[in-house]
């Protein structure tokens, strides 16, 4: 605490201070402020801030006070030159301020034009009003005529400064001495017992707490975990999707994607240079069923009727969807058919040009329900309940096309914020010829549905660029400060 604070207390003891600038001339206002706020924090004083506007001449203004205004200087020059001052010479004689002087002298009617010369317009020497006004401001800090003051301000001859001072009175804890206050309760105080007599500085409850510096999960994994909990609660088992490399067979052919389908183009799918060729699957019956369904039709299907090439099926790719794993799971299920529910949330790869909404890799959320005599209404009802767990309470279904599901439906959810329907996922029933090829019984029907993990996360966290969510460009601050996922809070 500064000595000045003690001076303030001593002064107050004699009576209140109405204006600190008058009572303590020459003391910097910041010093005064420091003293009164710290005394006020101890309730020793109360104070009010007084703000005063003060005008002062600028450097140019000071020059005018000393040497007269530009217009009077011009008038003087015109008087001096007996035959009048050549307009062209004004700048020569008076420098850059000559132009201003000329304008104002004209305005005041002090000079007039005579051909290319300036001659005097009044006989009596005029009063230099500008200089007088500035002189007044310099001594009093203001000018009574607000309009004129404003004019001087526009001419940049005066500037405003704010003077802060304080009125100070005794507070409830007023004393001439300043007591030392403790800021925190410490173990030493407990041990010594001084906590009983210590006085504590009031706590600043509006200050922020100290940063916790803890670890954090990635937001995408937090959303993934919410999805997993929904799946577990609905009886789904997680599929072994830890297999990024797939053969064309499992990624496409088993899913009844014909070999000339655009999805199989180099433009869309990553093919492998090394290793290059998959082995044929062990189940040769299945292999030949798949071939037959494509080539000539089987299991009630007329097929695509084209020459199916094993070498296309054994090409290796990075899986373009996790449905390749679903297909392998259903093929496995055919050995011991029965109701099953599977899910996965894992990476898929597309050979796409990268932009704000596309990355070459992203995560797919996928669910599969196998049961006897499932209906389309079951799928719709299931999706309704599933999405309601994500906070999407209004959904509707649009017929769509997908090579391996029929019917196929795009799922649209109503987005309250956007006031429109947005696509939230895809769903369908796997084609009978695909399931029967695997050896699944005819009446065991299978629902499939999928959505991306990134899209709902981007909506949830208002992320507009996928690269700010997945990959090395993601900001650690974003990860560290992302709130918990609560789907029950409205999502879409």
């Amino acid at each position, binding site marked *: 605490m500064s000595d000045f604070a003690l001076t303030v207390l001593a002064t107050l003891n004699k009576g209140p201070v109405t204006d600190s600038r008058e009572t303590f001339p020459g003391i910097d206002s910041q010093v005064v402020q420091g003293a009164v706020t710290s005394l006020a924090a101890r309730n020793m004083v109360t104070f009010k801030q007084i703000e005063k506007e003060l005008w002062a001449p600028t450097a140019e203004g000071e020059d005018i006070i000393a040497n007269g205004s530009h217009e009077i200087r011009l008038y003087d020059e015109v008087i001096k030159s007996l035959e009048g001052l050549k307009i062209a010479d004004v700048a020569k004689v008076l420098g850059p301020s000559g132009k201003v002087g000329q304008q104002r002298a004209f305005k005041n009617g002090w000079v007039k034009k005579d051909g290319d010369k300036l001659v005097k317009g009044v006989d009596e020497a005029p009063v230099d009003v500008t200089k007088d006004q500035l002189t007044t401001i310099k001594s009093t800090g203001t000018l009574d005529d607000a309009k004129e003051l404003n004019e001087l301000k526009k001419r940049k001859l005066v500037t405003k400064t704010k003077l802060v001072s304080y009125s100070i009175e005794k507070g409830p804890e007023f004393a001439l001495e300043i007591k030392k206050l403790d800021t925190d309760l410490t173990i030493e105080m407990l041990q010594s017992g001084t906590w009983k007599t210590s006085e504590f500085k009031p706590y600043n409850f509006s200050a922020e707490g100290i940063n916790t510096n*803890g*670890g954090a*999960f990635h937001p995408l*994994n937090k959303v993934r975990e919410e999805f997993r909990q929904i*799946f*577990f*609660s609905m009886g789904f*088992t*997680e599929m*072994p999707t*830890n297999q*990024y*490399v*797939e*053969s064309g067979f499992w990624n496409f052919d088993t899913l009844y994607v014909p070999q000339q389908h655009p999805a199989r183009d*180099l433009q869309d799918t*990553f*093919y*492998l*240079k*090394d*290793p290059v060729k998959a*082995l*044929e699957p062990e189940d040769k019956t299945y292999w030949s069923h798949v071939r037959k369904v494509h080539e000539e039709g089987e299991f*009630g*299907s*007329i097929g*695509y009727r084209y020459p199916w090439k094993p070498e296309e099926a054994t090409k*290796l790719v*990075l899986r373009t969807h996790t449905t390749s794993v679903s297909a392998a799971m259903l093929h496995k299920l055919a050995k011991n058919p029965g*109701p099953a529910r599977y899910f996965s949330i894992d*990476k898929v790869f597309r*050979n796409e*040009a990268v932009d704000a909404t596309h*990355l*070459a*890799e992203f995560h797919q959320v996928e669910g599969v329900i196998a*049961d006897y005599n*499932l*209906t*389309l*209404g*079951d799928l*719709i*009802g*299931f999706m*309704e309940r599933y999405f309601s767990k994500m906070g999407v309470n209004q959904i509707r279904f*649009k*017929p769509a*096309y997908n090579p391996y599901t*029929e019917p196929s439906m795009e799922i649209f959810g109503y987005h309250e914020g956007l006031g429109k329907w947005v696509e939230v996922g895809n769903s369908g*029933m796997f084609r009978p010829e695909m399931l029967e090829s695997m050896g699944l019984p005819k009446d065991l029907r299978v*629902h499939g549905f999928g959505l991306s993990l990134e899209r709902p996360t981007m909506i949830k966290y208002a992320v507009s660029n996928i690269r700010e969510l*997945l*990959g*090395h*460009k993601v*900001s*650690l601050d974003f*990860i560290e400060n992302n709130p918990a996922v609560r789907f029950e809070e409205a999502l879409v």
Partner: protein
Amino acid sequence: MPTIAVDKEDLYKSLGREYTTEEFDELCFEFGIELDEDTSQSDLPAGERPQLKIEIPANRYDMLCFEGISKALNVFLSREKAPNFKLVEAPKEKQITIVVDPSTEKVRPYVAGAVLRGVHFNQRSYDSFISLQEKLHANICRNRSLVAIGTHDLSKIKGSKISYTGVVPEKVKFAPLNQTKVMTGPELMEFYEKDRNIGKYLHLIRDSDVYPIFYDEEENVLSMPPIINSNKTKISLETNDIFIDLSGTDKTKIEVVVNQIVAMFSRYSSTPFTIEPVKIISEHNNLSRTCPNISPRKTTAEVDYINSVLGLKLSPQEICDLLSKMMLEATPSANSSNLLDVTIPITRSDILHQCDIMEDAGIAYGFNNLNRTFPADSFTIGEPLPINKVSDIVRREVAMAGWTEVMALTLCSHDENFAFLNRKDNGTEAVHLENPKTAEYQVVRTSLLPGLLKTIKENRKHSLPLKIFEVSDVVFKDTSLERQAYNNRRFGAVYAGKTSGFEIVHGLLDRVMKMLRVPWSDEKSDERGYWISELNNPTYFPGRGASIWYQEAKGSSPRQIGTLGVLHPQVLSNFEIPYVASSIELDVETFLIK
């Protein structure tokens, strides 16, 4: 999905009423197409007619033009019936014959054709005709590789006998569409090399010994598929009789394509929906026939199957009524009360199985009108994948220890995975991509380090120290496996700051092991446990790298399950990291409970 632009006023006129954009959007939604854009809602250049841009499912080739969309919607709205197409043969002497020469076997073996007579185009129907061919080429024809279409003004064709033959490139001579200069095969290849539209098709025949050519009776070239037509037989707004040639490499699709074209545009024939067939003589491959074959396919569908999948109890007749809205003509079968006789028109090549018929009944009924039930009868158990469960244990413990989780990319450049880490590619480990669009995606990572280090680089302005981790998969080659590769679950972490932090990542290892109930063990003891020992690995600073060893049980042999160490300054500089750093990486699959 293809997007088709149709004239808004024409479409609403054909549908017999005006729609608001919302109403039309709703109609599209129920039918399963999507209104992408109504151009009248944006600023149209003066004189341009408003269009509706409609997205069509990839298998509905019958909706790739205005005519098809209008027809499908009118039938869906029960305003019209599906058309009945009729073949009307030309008088014998005028009938077009295409003779296929065996020389075409080597290049594009299959041929189809048809004639439309007495067509009267206006500018918009003409444009639609051209655009349909483009859409077919881009979609089902797979950029003309499977099928290519050529259309000609029949009146400019000499004689009625057309030949399709393979010609040595140098002997090909004709002036292509919109050109006057006669060119040979090689000259045509050169001429179109840089053409934005045509250049991309040249590779389909360029290196072939012969180029396929359609000639008229006087040996005038009609077209050189799949590249270009001749200028001589060019069609125009004034053309009345149109000859369509098709050539291709896919026997099924060529029939689908010729049928779609005549189905869409025979409505403009002098007698609507009549088509004049051509005779194809192709003895060498047993494909002589009259083309097109427009007889609809007859099939059956089971009533109880349709009802069961849709969860409905409709009568056979009710299902037939629904199917008629989807252009499928169906009648209850005389033979069985559970069967419907269904006629699949040539437009609906997408119907392959009775499930496709079932879906159409569902669409006509309205997916959103179905009872929303719930598949609740069966009892299944929810379970995590074991490796994900172990991964989650590690993730939780590491995050609780104050580390921040990142998710880097699985694909990276070859350098990032090898050279930048002072590692060499021995050719046996990493999976290499064939066709990445950028050098960022050359290999599938075999280590989590590249992604972690790139994340450090991007976040170097973050307060120090940086402590990040990832639990994710890397991929290794294994030629004994069907898929030739397998994923391996890894835990990786990097500490970066003003000090190397070796003991900090070491401490993290100790913590993770403790939480996985793996005790520290002395290298010389034979107890279950883990220990670390010095490792000479160029990724790490000399003398500051270590192997992580794990012995699963007393008596079992220890395995190296990972490494840790102070990163080599060269590695740091390769990744442009201005700090010192330590890393740890280990195989999480070690801790699966067998």
